[in-house]
C-alpha cells in the first residue's frame, strides 16, 4: 500500500470511527474519570461541591444503610446463582430429552416473561403479591387455606423479589443451557451408560464438564445482573426501599444518595464499591473456571 493510500485509508477510518469514538470518549471515558474525582467530593445537586477526600469511603464503612443494602444484594445474588440457575439447568435437561415434542413451544413460553421489562414486571408483581386482592394470596388461600393477609411486600420482600425473578429469568437462562446441552456428544453419554454409569454419574462426569464454558458464562452474567438490582424493588415498593429498608439494594442506595439526597459524590463512592465487587466476582469466577478446567 502506498503512503498516500494509507493516509486516505486512515482519514476514512477516522470518519467511520468518529461517531463511536466521540460518544465513547465523552460519555464513557470522561464520566469514568469524573466518577473518580466525584467520589472524593460531597455535593448538593450538580453544582455545589467540595472536596472531602476519602471521607465518603470511611462514611460508607460506618453506614448501616449501606451494609443493609450490601446484605440484601448479596442474598439476592446468592439466590440467583444457587436457586435460579439450577432450576434453569433442570428445565433445560427436561427439554433436552431426544424426540420431545413441542420443544420450540415450551422454549418460547418459558422465555416469554423476559419480553417484559423489569419495570413492567414490577408493576404486575406488585399487585400479584398484594395482600387480600393479590392473585398469589388468593390462590394459596383457595388451595391450602393460608391467610389472605400474608405480608409479601411488607415483611417478606426478598423472597418476593426472588420469586418474581425466578418467573422472569429461569426461562431466559434455560435457553443458554439448552443450547449448550444440544452440543453435548450423545455417544459419550451412551458410552458412559454402557459402562454402567447411573444418571447422576453421567450428569457429573459427562454432561457438566461439556457445558462448563457456557455454565460459567451464565453464572457470571447472572451475578453481574443481580448485583445491579434496582428498578424491580424500587417500582414494586412505590419508589421506596420498603418497610425497614427490607428491599434496599446497592444501586437503589446509590440512586437515593445521588438523586434524592443530592450527593453525587457519595453516589459515586457507592458506584466504585459496586465496580470493585463486580471485578472481584469476575476474578473469583475466572479462577474457579480455570482450576476446574485443569482438574
Amino acid at each position, binding site marked *: 500500500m502506498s503512503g498516500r493510500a494509507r493516509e486516505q485509508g486512515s482519514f476514512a*477510518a477516522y470518519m467511520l470511527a468518529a461517531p463511536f469514538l466521540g460518544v465513547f470518549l465523552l460519555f464513557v471515558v470522561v464520566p469514568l474519570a469524573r466518577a473518580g474525582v466525584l467520589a472524593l467530593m460531597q455535593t448538593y445537586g*450538580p453544582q455545589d461541591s467540595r472536596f472531602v477526600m476519602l471521607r465518603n469511603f470511611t462514611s460508607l464503612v460506618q453506614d448501616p444503610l449501606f451494609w443493609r443494602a450490601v446484605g440484601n444484594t448479596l442474598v439476592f445474588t446468592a439466590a440467583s446463582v444457587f436457586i435460579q440457575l439450577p432450576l434453569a439447568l433442570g428445565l433445560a435437561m427436561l427439554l433436552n430429552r431426544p424426540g420431545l415434542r413441542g420443544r420450540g413451544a415450551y422454549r418460547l413460553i418459558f422465555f416469554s416473561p423476559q419480553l417484559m421489562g423489569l419495570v413492567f414486571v414490577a*408493576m404486575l408483581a406488585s399487585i400479584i403479591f398484594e395482600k387480600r*386482592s393479590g392473585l398469589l394470596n388468593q390462590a394459596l388461600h383457595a388451595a391450602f387455606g393460608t391467610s389472605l393477609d400474608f405480608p409479601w411486600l411488607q415483611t417478606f420482600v426478598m423472597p418476593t423479589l426472588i420469586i418474581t425473578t425466578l418467573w422472569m429469568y429461569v426461562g431466559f437462562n434455560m435457553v443458554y443451557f439448552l443450547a449448550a446441552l444440544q452440543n453435548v456428544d450423545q455417544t459419550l453419554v451412551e458410552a458412559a451408560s454402557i459402562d454402567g454409569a447411573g444418571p447422576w454419574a453421567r450428569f457429573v462426569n459427562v454432561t457438566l464438564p461439556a457445558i462448563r464454558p457456557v455454565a460459567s458464562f451464565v453464572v457470571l452474567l447472572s451475578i453481574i445482573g443481580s*448485583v445491579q438490582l434496582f428498578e424491580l424493588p424500587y417500582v414494586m415498593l412505590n419508589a421506596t426501599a420498603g418497610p425497614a429498608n427490607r428491599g434496599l439494594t446497592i444501586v437503589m442506595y446509590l440512586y437515593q444518595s445521588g438523586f434524592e439526597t443530592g450527593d453525587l459524590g457519595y453516589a459515586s463512592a457507592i458506584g466504585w464499591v459496586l*465496580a470493585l465487587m463486580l471485578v472481584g466476582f*469476575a476474578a473469583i469466577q475466572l479462577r474457579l473456571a480455570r482450576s476446574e478446567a485443569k482438574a
Partner: protein
Amino acid sequence: MRSHSVSLKMWALAAHAALIPLAILTLIPFVWLLTASLKSTDDFFSSMFLPAGDGPLGIAWGDLTLEHYNRLFFELGIGRALLNSVFLSSTTAVLATLACAAGGYALAHLRFAGRGLVTTLVLAALIIPPPLLLAPTYQLLYELGMLDSYTGLILPALAPAFGVFLFRQATLQSVPRELLEAARIDGCSEIGIFFGVVLPLVRPMVGAFILITFLATWNNFVWPQVVLQTAEKFPLSVAVSQLKGVYRQDYGLLMAGTVVSVLPPAALFMLLQKEFISGLTAGAVKG
C-alpha cells in the same frame, strides 16, 4: 427394541407431566394481567380471572370493559408516552447500531493512530457497571445543558462498549480482507465499502443488535428517570411507574397501562424472532 421405545415414551410422558404445569404457571401472570385490565373495579375484587355470569363458559363476557384503556388514552394521555417510547427506542436502536457497526469495523479492519489504545479501553469498559457512571454523567449533562432533553438521553446510549465489541468480532469473522482490497482496487470509497460491502455481510448481527437495543431502550427506566424532568417527555417506563404513585388502588388502570407498555415490544420480538435467533446463532457458530 420394543421395551426401549416404550421406555422412551414413558420418559416423554413424564417430561410433559412436569413441563405442562410449569408452562401453565409461567403463563398465568400474563392471563391475569390481561383479565385484570379488562375488568371493572368491582369485578376485580370479586373474581380471580374473569367475572362469573351466565354467558358462554359461565363467564359474564358483557361485564368486561375497556374503561381503563379509555381513561389511559383520553384522560391520562398515555398515547404521548407510547409515542415517546417508540421514538426514543427506534432512534437509539438505529443510531447505536450504525455507530457500533462503523466503530467495530474500523477497529477490526482499518489502521489509525490510537487503535490499540481504543481497543483496550473498549475491553476495559465492558466491566464498568453502568450505575457507576450515573452521577458523573448526570453532572456532565447538567454542564452541557442537556438535562431534560432527548439528546441527553439518546447521545450517551450510542456507544455501548458491548456493541462495538460485538461488531468488531463479527466483522473480523465474516468480512474477508481480500474482498475489501478488491473493492478498494475497484475504486470504492471507504464509506461506500462500509455501506455496500461490510454492512450486508454482517446483516444478521445488525438485525439482532437493532432488536436488542430497541428492547433495552424501551425497558430502560433509570436513565429517563434521572435525565428527564418534564412529564410530557416521559417514555412508558417512567410514565406508567408514576401512575402507580397516583392511582395506587386503581388496579385495573395500572394493569391496562402495563399491557399497553408490554404489547408493542412483544409483538416486535415475535415478528423478528427468526431474524433475531439466526443473528445470535450465526455469531455463536462462527465464534
